[in-house]
């Protein structure tokens, strides 16, 4: 597993590049690579902008059926999300964005798990499998 800090815009680019490499190495198609990298970009930006910085952990995984994939775990120690259902609604934003980052990222991946509580930071784990 590779740990990458998310403390600046450059770090967000590095997370994208790293997810791209691991996704390509594990047999994801170009479209699926693009989807997981785009989701990673949204989630890394969220960790930076709303979480005040955090960490991305990228690893190659294998499904129960033997399919390879890539798993990325984003964590931050920010203020957390009070209403997770609301945060996952298309078009809802607590900032100045379009409100598509979190909900859009969820649509782009195969598995999506968000854990958060007010004051306790946020963790988002995403997985994309090869086809």
């Amino acid at each position, binding site marked *: 597993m590779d740990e990458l800090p998310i403390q600046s815009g450059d770090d967000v680019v590095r997370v994208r590049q790293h997810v791209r490499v691991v996704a390509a190495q594990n047999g994801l198609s170009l*479209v699926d690579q693009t989807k997981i*990298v785009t989701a990673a970009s949204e989630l890394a*930006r969220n960790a930076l902008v709303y979480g005040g910085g955090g960490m991305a952990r990228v690893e190659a995984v294998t499904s129960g059926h033997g399919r390879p994939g890539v798993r990325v775990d984003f964590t931050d120690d920010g203020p957390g999300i009070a209403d997770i259902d609301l945060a996952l609604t298309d078009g809802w934003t607590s900032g100045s964005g*379009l409100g*598509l980052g979190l909900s*859009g990222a969820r649509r782009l991946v195969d598995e999506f798990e968000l854990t958060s509580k007010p004051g306790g930071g946020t963790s988002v784990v995403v997985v994309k499998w090869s086809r």
Partner: protein
Amino acid sequence: MERVPILKLGSTLFVSIQIDLQDDSVIQLQEDLAEQLVATRANGVVIDITAVEIVDSFIGRMLTTIGSISRLFDAETVLVGMRPAVAITLTELGLSLRGVRTALNAEKGLALLNGSS
């Protein structure tokens, strides 16, 4: 932060994005383009994203914003060269880039501007 260069081709500003875009670079491009539109009195902007591997919601919003800003300076924006994987991902993400014209490549983008001016 890397800066995206802006070229002037006749009455059109041509932007070819060849770097891995971070948010600050996109915001800078937006400001540089607005300045160049005033300075050059260009009536069109072609943004070539052939080399762009992902467009996420922030980059997508900024491209739409650039289109809106250009219109305020009486210039039309055409986005060209989007990769198929980027188009599929953008649509699934929920972004339509409403208000920005698109063309398959730079040549067609320039033709579109010249035909409509």
